């Protein structure tokens, strides 16, 4: 009978903040400050459209495609995926959100959207409300769950129950923000066609 060598899969080493990504974030943030200071249409539109497009696409993809797939995977597979995926999200999402919102605000000031009176102004107010709700969900629920999962997975003996509970929270909130991004798409395309 042939000997079969069975080795337990090694747990991935988890780096909570991917250090190699920090210089890229620094360049993006420096570019954002320069863009706002220049107060010129093209750089502001570039930052807002690129940042917003990536943020919306990522949220939709994560909430409506990856999330449901992840929810059906066994806890061990979810852990393996999260260990590699979540540290990257920890850098990507805040960077995209900051570049989209800061450049978007400045762009709205530059083109005079903020000066528009009601009832048209309701479209702007609706965008503030959608972003506000998404910010509370993302910063208040999704991100703490993300970080707590990473720390739990770094323990010598991670608690599977805690990871499953936090991952559920992550998947549901990602789904909600994904759906709210549909509202963002409607509002933003409406604003850009004024």
């Amino acid at each position, binding site marked *: 009978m042939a000997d079969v060598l069975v080795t337990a899969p090694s747990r991935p080493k988890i780096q*909570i903040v991917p250090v190699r990504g920090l210089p890229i974030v620094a360049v993006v943030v420096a570019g954002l400050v320069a863009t706002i200071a220049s107060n010129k249409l093209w750089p502001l539109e570039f930052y807002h459209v690129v940042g917003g497009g990536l943020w919306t696409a990522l949220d939709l993809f994560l909430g409506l495609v990856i999330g449901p797939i992840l929810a059906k995977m066994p806890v061990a597979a979810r852990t393996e995926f999260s260990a590699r995926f979540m540290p990257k999200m920890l850098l990507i999402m805040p960077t995209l959100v900051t570049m989209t919102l800061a450049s978007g605000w*400045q762009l709205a000031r530059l083109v005079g959207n903020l*000066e528009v009176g009601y009832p048209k102004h309701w479209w702007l107010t609706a965008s503030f409300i959608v972003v506000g709700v998404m910010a509370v969900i993302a910063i208040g629920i999704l991100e703490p769950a993300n970080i707590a999962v990473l720390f739990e997975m770094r323990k010598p003996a991670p608690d599977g129950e805690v990871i499953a509970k936090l991952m559920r929270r992550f998947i549901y909130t990602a789904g909600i923000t994904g759906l709210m991004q549909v509202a963002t798409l409607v509002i933003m395309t409406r604003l850009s066609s004024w």
Partner: protein
Amino acid sequence: MVRKLPPVAQIAVLAMALIVIGGITLASRLPHPAPLPVLIALLAVAAVLVLADIVLLTRLRDFAWPLFFQVAKWTLLAYAVMYGILEFTFVYDHVTGSTLVVLTLMLVVFAVDIPLLFGFSVARYATPGPAKADSKLTT
């Protein structure tokens, strides 16, 4: 086994929501002047909630304080960059006087609230005691 702890996270999220509502109220009124009494009221309630959170935290025994402060410290550093950009935008856009003061104080409440929330969210699942070597944020 997860311990029963006071609702620190829920209170922190509520405080955050009040600050966000303040921001939406201000932005929705533009180009008209900011409704300062409403903003001050929201800011005051949010500040009281954050203070209540700090009191609840200080009463905790057997809590992973080193890990709490480790996460809170790095969160504060990361969010300081965002607050800096926001403050820069306010000043660049000639926001002055009491509106600038209220907006800055809102950022200050946020600067305490978010690190507190993140630190608590991680430390609540950790074993009380000194931060372990494997809990470093970067390698």
